[in-house]
């Protein structure tokens, strides 16, 4: 799907330029676009290095594990089909905490582990169980508390206050996660009514 979007944006742009007489602008755009992308990535290094470094300290101090423990009672209610001390719950919790602190690379393997355990709970079937759909819904709604990359981009373009979007992002994330959970519940009850 990305392939199609990518090709059609470029090709439509080129055709449009031919018809519209904007070839000169397009020629320039090819080179400035590439250059801007590199500048951006170099700018990202500062924040990413600092943040991931901080999070490594948090991880080694056992802070992330502790936070998972604190979230447990809250999350338990979302997954009624997962037994209390099942390893799936541990993976689900650590995945969510990693996501909260913007550790996408750490969150993905934990999420896959959680899925494996949920599949085992579901008798190894190749269809998605209720818990799996809930877990996915929460993951796709994003749990990010600190949008580090976005802050870095804003810094790159000389924002007066790069972090002033943190509060609004947290609120919007909260809304989308609560929305995801409610939508998931709605679909679950619809499914179970149908039998």
């Amino acid at each position, binding site marked *: 799907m990305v392939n199609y979007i990518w090709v059609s944006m470029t090709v439509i*742009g080129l055709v*449009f330029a031919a018809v519209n007489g904007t070839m000169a602008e*397009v020629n320039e755009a*090819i080179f400035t676009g590439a250059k801007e992308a590199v500048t951006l990535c170099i700018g990202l290094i500062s924040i*990413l290095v600092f943040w991931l470094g901080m999070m490594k*300290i948090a991880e080694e101090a056992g802070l992330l594990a502790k936070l998972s423990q604190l979230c447990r009672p809250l999350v338990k209610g979302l997954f009624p089909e997962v037994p209390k001390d099942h390893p799936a719950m541990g993976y689900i919790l650590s995945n969510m905490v990693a996501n909260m602190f913007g550790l996408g*690379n750490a969150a993905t393997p934990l999420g896959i582990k959680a899925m494996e355990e949920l599949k085992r709970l579901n008798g190894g079937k190749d269809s998605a169980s209720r818990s799996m*759909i809930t877990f996915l819904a929460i993951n796709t709604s994003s749990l990010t508390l600190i949008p580090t990359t976005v802050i870095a981009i804003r810094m790159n373009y000389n924002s007066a206050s790069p972090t002033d*979007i943190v509060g609004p992002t947290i609120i*919007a994330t909260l809304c989308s996660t609560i929305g995801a959970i409610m939508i998931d519940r709605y679909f679950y009850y619809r499914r179970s009514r149908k039998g």
Partner: protein
Amino acid sequence: MQMISAISLWFIPVLIGFVLIYGTIKQVPTYESFVEGGREGIKIAVSIIPFLIGMMVAISVFRASGALDFLMDFIRPGMEMVGIPPEIVPLAIIRPISGTAALGMTSDIIGVYGPDSFIGRLAAVLQGSTDTTFYVLTVYFGAVGIKKMGDALKVGLLADLVGIVAAIVVVTVVFS
């Protein structure tokens, strides 16, 4: 409103202070751990360069040719009727499909409209408050061999819609 700006201002510094003090109490070799974790950041930033170049060149071409303006004028009336700024529509469409593509588009929007403009802030919040539904779905279900996805895709996309609406409402309320 003041509380939201206070959260924005205090959240990161307080968290950093807390992590450093907690780490010291737990006798973590703080500086060494920081350096070790930081290395990962360089790897990530460098590894997304090709993704961003590909996507940002495509967007630049699309914009410079005049095709984007044409599309904007076309969808503007319908979008404005429901209160969605048309400039944000391409980002909203690509956000659930590809994370790096959305990142490229977010930075393009922030660069063109300015980081402190309404559109720039909206793009920033939108990028931060939703995730790449198709990617999460493919990776998580693909890795463990789930073939029947049930309602997962529908739930994920509807949740994205809630996220987009929430971002528009929150940014409008906080920044205007």
